[in-house]
């Protein structure tokens, strides 16, 4: 059976049988897409499987890429402006050359309870890493800034459009050095806020979860809409 299984997996576009150690949490939107498609199939409703109405884009393959980055720890949090610094890295090598990106959205889930009501004001900075650096040895020099914004409370999931960046990485895999996420302290700190700051930052480090939602379209299976005339 092993031989036939391998052949069928290749037919499905997989190199080998996946054996994940721990199943990742599945976002609500992906569950909904699956449920809607199952319901439509059960009712024999014709579906356009090249359009994702839940996301408002064309595409026939959705990947929620896991973050393989790491934290930079600052032992003296009181002496710098950083609450946390983290490298974000998403491996795009599974995206086939012929696939075309139609969506790439970074999701940053900061956790529901990591930001105290009376905690300090924080600011989030997201930038592209443009120069190689020694992983785990030094903090990369931030390149182009993609986002600079206050961290809202309650946070929920923050989403950032990375379509251009992902397209660039796919065309130039050697340029995919990841992103640098920094959460900075906006407040002028006094002694009372300092305790709250350390708790808040520690909570953020525990609960932060990043993922990249990528939608691609295979032109062999789906056609791109014709360009509109001006």
């Amino acid at each position, binding site marked *: 059976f092993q031989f036939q*299984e391998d052949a069928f997996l290749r037919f*499905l*576009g*997989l190199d080998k*049988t*996946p*054996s*994940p150690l*721990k*199943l*990742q949490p*599945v*976002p609500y939107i*992906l*569950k909904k*897409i*699956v449920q809607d*498609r*199952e319901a439509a*199939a*059960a009712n*024999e409703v014709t*579906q356009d*499987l090249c359009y994702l109405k839940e996301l408002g884009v064309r595409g*026939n*393959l*959705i*990947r*929620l*890429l*896991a973050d*393989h980055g790491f934290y930079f720890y600052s032992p003296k949090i009181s002496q710098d402006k950083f609450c946390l610094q983290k490298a974000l890295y998403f*491996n795009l090598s*599974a995206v086939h050359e012929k696939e075309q990106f139609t969506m790439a959205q970074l999701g940053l889930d900061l956790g529901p309870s990591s930001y105290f009501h009376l905690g300090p004001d924080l600011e989030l900075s997201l930038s592209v890493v443009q120069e190689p650096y020694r992983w785990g040895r030094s903090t990369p020099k931030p390149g182009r800034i993609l986002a600079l914004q206050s961290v809202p409370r309650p946070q929920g999931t923050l989403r950032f459009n990375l379509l251009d960046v992902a397209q660039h990485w796919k065309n130039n895999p050697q340029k995919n050095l990841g992103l640098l996420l920094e959460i900075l302290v906006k407040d002028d700190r006094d002694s009372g806020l300092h305790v709250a700051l350390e708790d808040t930052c520690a909570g953020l480090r525990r609960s932060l979860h990043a993922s990249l939602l990528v939608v691609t379209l295979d032109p062999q*299976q789906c056609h791109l809409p014709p360009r509109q005339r001006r």
Partner: protein
Amino acid sequence: AAIPVPSPSCRSLCHRHQLFIHFRDLGWHKWIIAPKGFMANYCHGDCPFSLTTSLNSSSYAFMQALMHTVDPQVPQAVCIPTKLSPISMLYQDNDDNVILRHYEDMVVDECGCG
């Protein structure tokens, strides 16, 4: 969906049969998140010349069945899927990525002689 049950005399004729594939049976439940399985179905049954026209046959199947009656060396028309539909699968790969993709022609909706 309800499947029409042929009368006893027609049971051997080409029609769709239910076949549910449980991913657990394949050991694939360890990486496929949804669905748990799907109704793949299959086609099976005879395609006799006398009934070829009423069994959702192609023109070629009709001709092949006719040729078979003349020359038994020509194989009979066979019972095959005539309408297929896709399924969507949500699974996790070895890099902890969650992937949703659809696969065409995975479910047999209708059968006929071809």
